[in-house]
């Protein structure tokens, strides 16, 4: 089991399967809010579904409408269960606050490097993260 400790932005205790992107992500234009599928052409996770996953990526990029998209995804039931960032940028932060999606960043170990897609991940309210092979 690997253990990480990060900064809590939106607190929550959740457990789920990790979906890890080494590339930044834009929720607007990059993810279809109705299906939760990543649609950005050429993105390493193109075609993957973020819904219900512990979504791990370095930082948000692109459109400033991304916060609304995260909020809408929460309403549609297609949002990720939690988001772990290397460093969260304001668009993702605001989206997670509005949508009440647990969010943590600034970990002692880089979650992008240390967690793998398919790992089981548990996030605690205090920013602790545990990851293990299922």
């Amino acid at each position: 089991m690997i253990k990480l400790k990060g900064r809590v932005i939106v607190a929550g205790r959740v457990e789920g399967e990790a979906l890890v992107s080494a590339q930044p992500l834009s929720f607007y234009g990059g993810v279809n809010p109705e299906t939760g599928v990543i649609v950005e052409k050429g993105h390493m996770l193109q075609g993957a579904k973020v819904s219900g996953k512990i979504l791990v990526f370095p930082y948000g990029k692109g459109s400033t409408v991304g916060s609304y998209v995260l909020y809408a995804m929460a309403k549609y039931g297609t949002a990720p269960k939690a988001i772990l960032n290397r460093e969260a940028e304001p668009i993702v932060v605001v989206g997670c606050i509005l949508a009440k999606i647990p969010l943590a960043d600034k970990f002692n170990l880089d979650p992008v490097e240390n967690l793998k897609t398919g790992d089981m991940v548990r996030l605690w309210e205090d920013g602790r993260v545990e990851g293990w092979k299922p």
Partner: protein
Amino acid sequence: MYLTGEEEAVLDGERGEAPAKLMKLLVALGEIYGADRMLKVSSVHVSGVSYKNIGTPGLELLEDLASQEGRIEPEVKATLNPAGMDLEKWRLMGIPESFAGKQLQVYEAFKRMGVSEGLTCTPYEADNKPGLCESVAWAESSAVAYVNSVLGARTNRESGITALASAITGRTPNYGFHLEENRKPTLLVDVEARLEDALDFGGLGYLVGLNHGNAVPYFRGVKAGGLEEFKALGSAMASSGAVALYHVEKITPEAAKYKKEAENVEKTKVSGEMLRRVFERFPLNRERFDCVFLGCPHCSLEKLKRVAEMVEGKRVKGRFWLCTSRRIYSEALKLGIVEALKGAGVLILRDTCMVVAPLKDIGFETVLADSFKAAHYLSGSLEASLASTKRCVEIAIEGRVKP
């Protein structure tokens, strides 16, 4: 984080539920990023206006805010980003009634809050043009890059909702690009490639955004550039990456201040070959398009004039759409440019652009554009190709790509 008595009062609900809720959001953001206090903002630009982007949840959120005393501070200059359609000519775009109804409801909610101007991604060409060092809160990634870098005003990459929060509270937390130390370059880009037109600037931006998405780039070797070139550069960098601020040696207002510092940061270069290869992402590999589209970011008066000259005495075959702001449109109207374009069969739209319009509902599958930002976002849902402005106009006139 220190709050003034006035700010505390807003937080306590003295101005109503919406201002309190939005102040709480700004304080939370300020705490996360270590802001010491709030700044007063003079100008705000709000994104998240297209119903296609915000959907029913976004519409409901805006309607709630409007009915909970969400009103724009009168001393703040506030503008809106484009909507999903021309608010008047939407039928000409093939927009379904159901979408139009929802879009008008979104606009109505904003109007109730006191913001109805702009409807453009280029507010700096539509009477919202802050000056050097002014504290502002802008959303719309391309406008953020422009206002920070070319005008030298100071904003973070605001989300649509935090920009609205700043318009209603008149405040933004003091962190990030509001602080001098964060405006220093973090990447030196030596541009060896020759930049021939605005599209090449877009290519340069797209490449830098892809590889250094959260940098503050300092460009060296860019000989000249104006409104069109920097609109293309910044909008591309903020699409493939999250770049909110850049400097261009000898051109942008803060570059001189950072000339020395730029020597001591990570270095990269962009060669002609690298620039050529980035175009391969959006190849011109088909003969016909459902639509040729110019105006991402919104067309300037100069650009409309240039296109009007190119189509003079000709008629375009197939759909050729130009998008611009109401402000620029009214100037073009006075100069006879609108009439000239209409005469050639060009559809000029206001309030909207193809990146935020419901293209699937309209039935488009292939689009040709002269903007990396447009191609980037359109390629998420359809086939997008790129060509220079001049080539786009030629293709619109021919009705197809001549081999």
